[in-house]
């Protein structure tokens, strides 16, 4: 960047160093970090699913043991917390996705709300569909 010439009062620009806790100074920054950390819950669910598939492949007994293990309070709590973060991911994702789509291309004819609503609608269909498909015994 530019070189400043020396004068009688030597000019020194003051630079503040960004604190390690910058994300705790503003509510908006904090929520942003929470949103980013949801990726950990997403990764966790992949691991969970792989464990489930692994148990399934090993036969009915091992699978039953896995199901039992899932009933432990620790696992239930872990999954409940993860569900919160995974939901937070989904909601923030659907709310932000329309901003990336150049639906404004044709003179803003497609409002953000329509894209968000379609996303939530599709999500509802998929979710309810899966519940109907996978439960009932």
């Amino acid at each position, binding site marked *: 960047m530019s070189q400043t010439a020396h004068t009688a009062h030597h000019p020194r620009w003051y630079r503040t160093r960004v604190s390690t806790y910058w994300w705790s100074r503003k509510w908006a920054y904090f929520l942003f970090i929470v949103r*980013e950390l949801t*990726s950990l819950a*997403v990764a966790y669910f992949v691991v*969970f699913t792989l464990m489930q598939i692994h148990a399934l492949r090993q036969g*009915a007994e091992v699978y039953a043991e896995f199901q039992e293990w899932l009933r432990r309070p620790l696992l239930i709590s872990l999954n409940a917390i993860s569900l919160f973060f995974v939901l937070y991911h*989904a909601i923030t*994702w659907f709310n932000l996705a329309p901003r990336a789509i150049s639906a404004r291309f044709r003179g803003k004819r497609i409002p953000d709300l329509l894209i968000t609503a379609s996303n939530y609608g599709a999500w509802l269909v998929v979710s309810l569909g899966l519940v109907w498909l996978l*439960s009932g015994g």
Partner: protein
Amino acid sequence: MTKRSNEPFLWFLFSAGGVVAAFLMPVLLFLNGLAFPLGWLTPFGYEKTLDLVKHPITRLLLFVMCSLPLFHWAHRFRFTLYDGLQIKHLNEVISFLSYGGAIVGTALAGYLLWNIP
């Protein structure tokens, strides 16, 4: 002419993973992690579950669901470490561990889903 970055491809994986995770994970985590273990809903028995998972479409869906979201995590977590902990100078290590982890996970998913006895 400066070389164009390959970040677009990584961002594409991140986005695809984000979409898959947003659509599928809430309900599946709810069912498999809470509703079934707590008895709110009844799951399929072992045989029926096995049959369902063996189906090629299910296996493909599960593979996609276990692969793309890992790349979503890798990309997002990498930037969270840069900005949150200010360790951007370790970017080579971070990239190796995060995308590397995603590749390992993908390979594992592929192995588990390729052949179900």
